[in-house]
């Protein structure tokens, strides 16, 4: 009895020095955006850019427009990954940059901070092969391709296949099967 009591106390004492000084860490994304970052990475594997040349070696740019909710998480996921023959490259695009700079992206995530000008952004990319993704409500109605929605505590997504086809993007049937239909997020 006394032995265990002493053991408990010793263990409690022993725990304290186990904790080193606080390390400064760059902030990671919230769990929701960690999951969304992983979705973004996954989407690149199920989309075909029809205009891309076979064996294209230039980077596949995954751009985030506006306030970046992903932080280091997105870089951690994307870093060193290839999509076919193309290396994945995460890029941040400031809200202030000219819209035509977005045309060099292959995937564009539109952050919630861009709510006010989401139509303007999407119109500037009309029929350009840029896969547009956002969690803004009404994103598909505004002409976007993939919209995240929360169902309970889980992340789901809807795809507007027709809009993607107009941008010369082919989305695999596997991804379409898992997606909600646009009418379900309206």
């Amino acid at each position, binding site marked *: 009895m006394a032995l*265990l009591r002493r053991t408990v106390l010793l263990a409690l004492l022993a*725990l304290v020095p186990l904790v080193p000084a*606080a390390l400064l*860490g760059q902030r990671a994304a919230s769990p929701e955006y960690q999951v969304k*970052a*992983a979705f973004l990475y996954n989407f690149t594997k199920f989309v075909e850019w029809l205009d891309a040349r076979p064996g294209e070696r230039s980077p596949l740019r995954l751009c985030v427009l506006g306030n970046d909710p992903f932080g280091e*998480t997105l*870089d951690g996921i994307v*870093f060193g990954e290839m999509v076919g023959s193309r290396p994945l490259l995460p890029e941040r695009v400031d809200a202030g940059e000219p819209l035509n700079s977005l045309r060099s992206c292959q995937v564009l995530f539109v952050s919630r901070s861009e709510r006010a000008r989401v139509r303007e952004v999407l119109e500037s990319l009309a029929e350009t092969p840029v896969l547009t993704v956002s969690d803004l409500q009404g994103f598909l109605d505004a002409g976007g391709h993939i919209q995240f929605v929360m169902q309970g505590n889980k992340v789901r997504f809807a795809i507007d296949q027709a809009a993607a086809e107009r941008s010369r993007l082919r989305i695999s049937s596997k991804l379409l099967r898992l997606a909600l239909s646009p009418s379900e997020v309206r």
Partner: protein
Amino acid sequence: MKSAGILIACLVLAAGVPASAWDQLDQEEEVLASAEELKGLSIEELMEIDVTSVTRRSASLSSAAAAISVITREDIRRSGVTSLPEALRLVATLHVARFDGRTWGISARGFNITTANKMLVLIDGRSVYTPLFSGVFWDVQDTLLEDVDRIEVIRGPGATLWGANAVNGVINIITRPAGDTQGGLVTAGAGNEERAFGAVRYGGALGKRGHYRAYAKHFDRDSLAFADGRDAEDPMKMGQGGFRADWQGAGEADWFTVQGDVYRGRVGEPTRADTDVDGGNLLGRWSRKTSESSGMELQVYWDNTYRRVPTVFEEHLDTWDVDFQHQLRAAERHNVIWGLGYRYSRDRVSDSPALAIPPPRRTLELASAFLQDEISLAGDRLRVTVGSKVEHNQSTGFEIQPSVRFAWTPADDRTLWGAVSRAVRTPTRFDEDLVFFTTGGVPFIRGSRDFESEELLAWELGYRWLPLRDLSLDLSAFYHVYDELRSQEPTPGTVLPIVLANKLNAETWGLEGRANWQASQRWRVYFGWALFENDLSFDPDSRDASGGEAEGNDPDYRFTLRSQLDLPGRFELDGWLRTVGELPSPEVPDYTELDLRLGWRATDVLELSLVGQNLLHDQHPEFGPPGPARREVERSVYGKVLWRF
């Protein structure tokens, strides 16, 4: 003795400020640990991740300021357990002891008896305790195990958030939303102990924004055995059905849930007529999430139970409960949760020559309010939570149950936490109204309206660490000081009746821990342990001669080792070894048992499994006084088919 408490207090203070809270009871263990893991997940797996919980702020388990273990859906599936009490054995930190065909003793941190009264048990937010003895009739707590999302086991007081009865721990059984259980499921199985069982579930869409499911299940479980090997004639049969619907409101912020169950069962008894049980419940919940850190939830339920134990007692119980909670970011560093609750329960109890619980009808009302504030300091690395619950009941009036907790996360892979909290167990009808008679009809033990609340002051400290990407460790130590525990006081002069009073005190302390090791992509190992000791004492004026034996019978140690191995050809081989130390009084020998499961996921929709339980001995006792009438758990083998459509 007291010096230990003071020492721990100093340590807690030295380790950095007071103690923190209680919210993030959440979820998946370190599910979002690293980018490496995230990118390894498929779209289907990503869709399954629970990212937030509406009213308790989301955080990975590793930073919670409390001793929590989570039993996942996969743990349940791969263990081959067939009931909720069996599933609770999966964590070493709970002592689960089977007494007979319908009775279980389940408790954390000691005081385990067949009417264990210091644990709060919730199924989807519905408290399943009976105000009769403030414990749980485990035989009727069931659901479709395939639809259980997870079981959170929180050791130590949870009274600040959950209220009275959450003294030694909270068991939170959470089923999956209907949207996650779509399509059909059929299971069927048979064996020597699990003689026959089966279930059907179907889930579909409910308009554009919702889903539903409905299920029905039945089981026929064989008797235990007497010590001499004879059949104990206490088999149990039960049928249960239920439904759940979840739908989203017009705005994305609102979610609605309606769910309910009905059941009816019968348990054999060797010396009298069968025990009958039935009941049902209906629950509605509205939750609104207004942002990452704010939301509210309103929940209402009704629960009805009936139990007839011939020649002992008969109980009808109806419970109505309303709960509201609101979470908001009150200021930049302050996350506040507050809530209100009201519970009304009414019972009707019939007497027998053996016992009476006058008055035959009693109404209990319980009103409560809680407030807690989580304060983020040092750039979110230190979180301090202070809070309290105030509760009012008819027997003891107002009860205040505060707690202070801290969690310090110096790096993402480690958390040190500590807590000091107070919890009470309020008087029950057993404490106040019960009268046991001798065979001659003389009152032998009787309750007392002077019975007061049992009190606990708990000191806890814990450390969680991910030393390697594949290894997580969790250690906690506790020191509990109990006052005013139930004692049995003989009447001066006549001895009988023995009257229940509050003259027992106790100190308990222990170490608990677990290690999860992902040895490879195909092999996972879990090791858990709990060490426990207690020291009981009586007030100087107590005449109790029982030694406190009736209040708890707890092993000094428990160990659990589980292994989940994925074999080629979609086979799965799972092993589970558990050791429970000797119970002191009444004495039950220590035992070690082994379960094995061989599963084969023949196709995506068909799964076959063969499970052996308690394989090391023909039979072994887990609870109850020694003698030929003690029931023992027998070796069991069963096969099961699961088909999805």
